[in-house]
């Protein structure tokens, strides 16, 4: 058994090599990072466009089963990403219902997976944000004779910080998930065509650690942490408005 300090030296070497890769802007790292950002940004954008209107309808709507629906959405915050991956995989593979679209092992397929992941998060937190808008403000808006649309726009304005935080949170969860990304994407490098590559930060870390390429894994891990840090800063700026 190696001593503790001896055991630290390969980690230290890995860190040094990782920093060299980062400083030299290693093209492989740039590709992987760029692809991760593009996929997750697309998923969060699509997710927001669906979830914010949907959340508004649920927050201010009056219909049977509303509470059960909210409860269900909140439960789905913890939807295991591998299960999302499995379900999307089964639907988009050739023999599945959407097989003719050829989405398996493509970035587009991965965007679908991440969109499914962020939908309940953004929807649920939008609902919470809108419900939390002060009742007196809501009453004031209504008493001023606002139409339903005007009312909704004012309420969304009031809740904008909380909704932005929700989007940032969803972004953080989507970019750091690995289960769905591996099942749907397959961790394909695709050297000749950037837009058909499916190797993202998380899947590359999983693969490269298995391959024994520790430096690359550490470098990609540092980038993931930096992204998480940026998201955290955004959330705290938003919340300490």
């Amino acid at each position, binding site marked *: 058994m190696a001593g503790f300090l001896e055991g630290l030296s390969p980690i230290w070497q890995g860190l040094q090599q990782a920093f060299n890769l980062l400083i030299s802007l290693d093209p492989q790292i*740039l*590709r992987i*990072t*760029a692809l991760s950002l593009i996929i997750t940004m697309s998923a969060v954008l699509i997710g927001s466009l669906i979830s914010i209107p949907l959340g508004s309808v649920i927050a201010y709507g009056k219909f049977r089963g509303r509470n059960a629906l909210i409860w269900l959405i909140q439960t789905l915050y913890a939807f295991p990403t591998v299960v999302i991956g499995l379900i999307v995989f089964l639907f988009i593979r050739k023999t599945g219902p959407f097989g003719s679209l050829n989405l*398996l092992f493509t970035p587009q397929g991965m965007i679908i997976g991440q969109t499914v992941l962020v939908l309940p998060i953004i929807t649920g937190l939008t609902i919470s944000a809108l419900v939390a808008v002060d009742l007196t403000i809501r009453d004031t808006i209504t008493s001023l004779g606002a139409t339903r649309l005007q009312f909704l726009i004012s309420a969304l304005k009031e809740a904008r910080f909380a909704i932005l935080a929700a989007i940032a949170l969803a972004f953080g969860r989507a970019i750091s998930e690995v289960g769905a990304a591996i099942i749907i994407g397959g*961790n394909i490098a695709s050297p000749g065509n*950037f837009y058909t590559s499916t190797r993202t930060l998380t899947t590359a870390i999983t693969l490269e650690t*298995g391959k024994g390429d520790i430096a690359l894994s550490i470098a990609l891990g540092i980038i993931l942490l930096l992204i998480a840090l*940026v998201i955290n800063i955004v959330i705290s700026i938003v919340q300490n*408005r």
Partner: protein
Amino acid sequence: MLERMNFKKTLFVLSIVVIVLTGIAFSGCTTTTPPTTPQKQDLLIATTTSLYDTGLLDYLGGIFGPEYNANLRITAKGTGQALELGQNGDVDVVMVHDRAREDTFLQNGYGVDRRVFAYNYFIVVGPPSDPASVKGMTATQAFDTIYKKAQTDPKTIFVSRGDASGTHAREQLLWKNAGYNYSNIRASGSWYVESGTGMGATLLIAEEKDAYTLSDVGTFLAYEGNLTLVPLVDKGDDLLNVYSAMIINPAKFPDTKVQLSKDWINWLMTPKGQDLIANYGVDKYGQQLFYPARDNWELLGVTQAETQTPIP
């Protein structure tokens, strides 16, 4: 009013973040993507981790790609998973190493045009201390000895792929040849560990546990720098490891890129492709990782046509 100011500030910060991130994203594209001609075709291949983890396919794809204006997209799975993807038409080509399941795959009409392009050997590797003293035995003797020793010695451990891969299939065959029922082996105690993952990761697990495992020689050599494990058994016909490629049957899945698939497999079988395979990694690892199949069909027990005749 104050809140409005702050919101603008937040939006400002957010837009900067987005611009910077997009900048990174696009610099990633522009610096690394060569201008792609519109005709460049993607070929999707499901392969075994033992073939992929050595880096062979990335290397060959880097030479084949420009020549044929093609872009190889490779997803590394076990043979079982690769064949399952093939059965559902999710890929164009499968490159695997399990003759028995390949035969079934072809008989059931999922694949066509099998060609054998390379071979090497499986090896039994283990810790240098070799607690069961299997060095120099035949594979079946070694398996038998490991099993018996493990019943009394807690230091004797075997790590199995446990993932329906080609290597896992060979391991099961070796247990059978050694006179054991595989399901009994699986259930016989904590000495038998299933990693459920690829060859490279399995070697790293065996390394951590000071355990024995069955590996293909290519992956072992590619990982040797990170390992203290040593090869203990590396001789015998039952350790022959034969790699084949098959095209997914276009009659079942019309989307299969038949022409490019043929080009790829035929290119592998050319004397040039075979030389590239034979020389791959020799400078780095000091020995051959793969042997060309072209002139060794008798040794491999396959037909001459499978190793030499291009797919028409």
